């Protein structure tokens, strides 16, 4: 068997060749120093990768972290109006609708406020009535001097001769016999 190329040896090393090719390459490698060396190199590389010992891994990680920190520092010092804000379209439309309703309500309220004073200005405040009634004598004096609020006014000619003679009564005329 002639020496297989490196790609075929790599496929054999990874178990990706068929059974017939795998047996032939295995027999060849045992007899061929060059191919055995290539297989050994692949073994070393595989061991290295499995151990995750990437050369310079720490330096690479530090560089990535530093780059992230620098970008974050730049972003925090940026003016807020230059920042990018993600707002979905439904939220934006809802906010716009609420603003329109709010301004319409404010406009309506102002129109009503402008209309009310026109009526209020015509309403004259009622004059204050201050009656300092401190006694029955005062009440009687007010009643004597003020006839407003009564439907019928009668002046009794012989008031001096009248007096309370008992319990007030309200009776049917049919039940009343004068003098009895």
């Amino acid at each position, binding site marked *: 068997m002639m020496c297989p190329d490196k790609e075929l040896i790599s496929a054999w090393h990874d178990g990706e060749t068929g059974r017939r090719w795998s047996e032939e390459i295995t027999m060849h490698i045992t007899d061929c120093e060059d191919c055995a060396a290539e297989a050994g190199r692949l073994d070393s590389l595989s061991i290295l990768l499995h151990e995750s010992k990437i050369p310079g891994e720490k330096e690479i990680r530090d560089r990535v972290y530093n780059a992230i920190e620098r970008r974050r520092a730049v972003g925090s010092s940026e003016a807020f109006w230059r920042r990018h804000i993600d707002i979905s379209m439904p939220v934006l439309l809802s906010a716009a609708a609420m603003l329109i309703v709010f301004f319409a309500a404010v406009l309506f309220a102002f129109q009503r406020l402008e209309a009310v004073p026109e009526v209020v200005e015509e309403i004259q405040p009622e004059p204050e009535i201050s009656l300092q009634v401190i006694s029955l004598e005062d009440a009687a004096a007010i009643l004597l001097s003020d006839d407003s609020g*009564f439907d019928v006014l009668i002046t009794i000619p012989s008031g001096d*001769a009248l007096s*309370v003679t008992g319990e007030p009564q309200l009776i049917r005329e049919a039940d009343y016999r004068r003098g009895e």
Partner: protein
Amino acid sequence: MIVDLSAQSGSLDLSYIENKKLSINMTTRILGDENETIWHMDSSKITVSGEAVKVKLSGGNLIVIANITPYLNSDNTLFLVAKGEIFMTDSADSEEVKYYTTLKSLPVTVGEKVIFFPLGMAYDSNSNFYSMEMEIQVQSVEDPDDSAKVE
């Protein structure tokens, strides 16, 4: 802006009140020692059911305020309420005022006469005081337009 209420009267339904107009006819009498009428005065006032007619009688040493309120029932009977208030002094020179108040009610029919004694009834004919009575008659007020319709 002045609101013209007359312009709105067309929208007000006053038929309920119109159908309950009542006339309060009163005869106030002063009776002498022998219960003879020595003075009287007739007065009349139109009102509606539930609205009081306020009468003020004044003279000499007393003021009598009588509020007569008729309530018209659905069966066309009446419930008459009479409220009386009296302010009086013992004499014209006295400054001490006495106050009496009373509230009386009576179911009556339309046109029936009742008598209200705001100062009480003078049973004793020998008393030196005159007595006062108010004869009250409540009558329904016929609308001339309605009478014409009936005829």
